[in-house]
């Protein structure tokens, strides 16, 4: 990395930390919540982009991994009392009743369990190609959801869990988001990351160049599931309540929207898109509510927000298939060029 780039990156990170400090202390709770969601969706977007965007596997099962993560942290961080209150229909299974862990180990376990599920699901499912893989992963996510809806003594079934401690704050969410970005950058730029991209580009050629397709697909899938689990955990401890209905296909769709908009082969794109989409989804909430323009009140139309987002997704996939960034990544060079309206030099150094 160039010296200049190194310093610029460090300065940016310091600025981010300062911003987070002030946001945490002084900003309105609503805005803080949105900021948290942006970071969480960054993690979720990156985890899905690894599998779908970089390795080219069409996996639609992300909501399942998130559910596993969210329920794991919820069950582990709920106090003994809160657990008893939640599980009034049927008491929680004995070994879990008294287990209470701090946030970090709970999150870690969430990720690990989700990764384990990813491995177990991946082993059979990843032998399938294209559409079949999509439907199989969708199926697995649904199976997980249905299981969670029916295991009254572990997940509290359809009632869900309430009163989950609000451990997710800006430090946790942005800290983990930053770690995820770093992890993905290191992974994608390593030989293993290149192998993933090769699989996306042309499986047969990749295999002929000696790449073990199955091993690498499972690797990518499992890592993606790990971060999806952690994202799910962060989400649960932010929202305070979770239930199986939250983890329907709509959730996977939202993340798919984020990675398509940002550009499926770009880490930068996913990060930017996570922020843009999360903020827009909040900003466009007004479409669902009545609008008081003083002289006239336009009645809110429930669901209009999602119509707008569906149209947006269609427009992007039909006309801007590569999304915002395509497969390009952020570089300080590019940013500086954009900011100073500099035209790139032609060959020979002429302007």
């Amino acid at each position: 990395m160039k010296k200049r780039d190194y310093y610029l990156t460090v300065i940016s990170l310091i600025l981010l930390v300062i911003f987070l400090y002030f946001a945490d202390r002084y900003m309105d709770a609503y805005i803080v919540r949105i900021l948290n969601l942006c970071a969480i969706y960054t993690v979720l977007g990156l985890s899905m982009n690894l599998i779908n965007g970089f390795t080219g596997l069409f996996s639609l099962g992300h909501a399942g991994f998130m559910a596993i993560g969210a329920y794991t942290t919820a069950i582990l961080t709920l106090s003994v009392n809160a657990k008893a209150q939640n599980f009034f229909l049927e008491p929680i299974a004995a070994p879990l009743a008294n287990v209470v862990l701090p946030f970090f180990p709970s999150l870690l376990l969430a990720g690990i369990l989700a990764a384990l599920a990813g491995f177990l699901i991946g082993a059979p499912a990843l032998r399938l190609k294209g559409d079949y893989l999509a439907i199989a992963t969708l199926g697995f996510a649904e199976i997980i959801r249905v299981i969670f809806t029916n295991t009254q003594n572990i997940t509290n079934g359809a009632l869900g869990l309430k009163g989950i401690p609000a451990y997710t704050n800006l430090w946790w969410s942005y800290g983990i988001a930053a770690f995820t970005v770093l992890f993905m950058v290191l992974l994608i730029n390593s030989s293993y990351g290149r192998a993933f991209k090769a699989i996306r580009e042309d499986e047969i050629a990749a295999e002929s160049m000696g790449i073990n397709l199955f091993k690498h697909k499972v690797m990518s899938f499992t890592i993606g599931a790990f971060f999806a689990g952690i994202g799910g955990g962060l989400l649960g401890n932010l929202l305070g309540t979770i239930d199986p209905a939250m983890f329907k296909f709509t959730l996977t769709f939202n993340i798919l929207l984020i990675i398509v908009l940002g550009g499926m082969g770009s880490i930068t794109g996913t990060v930017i898109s996570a922020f843009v989409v999360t903020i827009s989804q909040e900003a466009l909430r007004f479409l669902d509510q009545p609008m008081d323009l003083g002289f006239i009140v336009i009645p809110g139309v429930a669901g209009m927000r999602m119509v707008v987002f569906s149209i947006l997704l269609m427009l992007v996939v039909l006309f801007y298939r590569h999304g915002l960034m395509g497969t390009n990544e952020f570089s300080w060079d590019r940013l500086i060029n954009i900011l100073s309206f500099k035209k790139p030099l032609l060959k020979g150094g002429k302007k």
Partner: protein
Amino acid sequence: MIKMTSEMFLQHLANGISLGSLYALIAIGYTMVYGILRLINFAHGDIFMMATYFAFFGVFFGLPWYVSFPITIILTIILGMTVELAAYRSLRDAPKISIMISAIGASFLIENLAIVIFGGRPKAFPTEELFTKVVHIGNVSVQRLTFIIPVVTAILLIILLYLINKTKTGMAMRAVSKDHETARLMGVNIDRTISITFGIGSALAAIGGVMWGLKFPQIQPLMGVMPGLKCFIAAVIGGIGNTTGAVIGGFFLGVSEIMLVALLPGLTGYRDAFAFIILIMVLLFKPTGIMGEKISEKV
């Protein structure tokens, strides 16, 4: 496993066959589109849902059922063909993942438009005395509908098989399923053939939707999601791309779903997961399905 009288068994079987017929009608739409475009038309279930609303509004505005239902079919055909034109046509040569995302987007768009236009609250589908009158055979009581559905399905199937195997249009459809380029070189109008395929699939979904509405009279914008997924699974079980297979898959799924819940009522909550479990089994052990042919890639 609960004990069951033979009457109850027959009742459940009749329901299973009815449900299976409905699944079959919808599954055919999936399998035909997959055969011709290698695309899972995620929006198909939502087209089925829209059909029920078309029928609802037809009757709502005072039209008798024998006017409203045919209009429903026409409207649904138009809808299905519009979706193909808007969401899929321009992406035919794009990477597979783009068209799949477009399908998901179209599905979500239709669902959310339905929520916006019709409201999210369920509506009551009009009941038609003609169909819902209960008939008693021995100790078994079923609605007339329970017989009508399989009969209608069988008739439609015969017409469809005739269409596919004995007409020029059908031959065009089969040709395009095999190879777009070659079919084009042989003078087949690809765009028209694909449109017709969507049209037929939508028509069948419309008829299925109307009968579904008569049998399960509560309609809501998201009612197409689960049946849509299940019917795609039915198509896979039967061998994706194969019309007869879709029918076999539909019946298999419908009957086994009903029987499962009937014999093991403790598993009712897992009713929906059942289809997915079967799907996974099929994909793992016989991905080409019951009637399937292997589609190989040239290296």
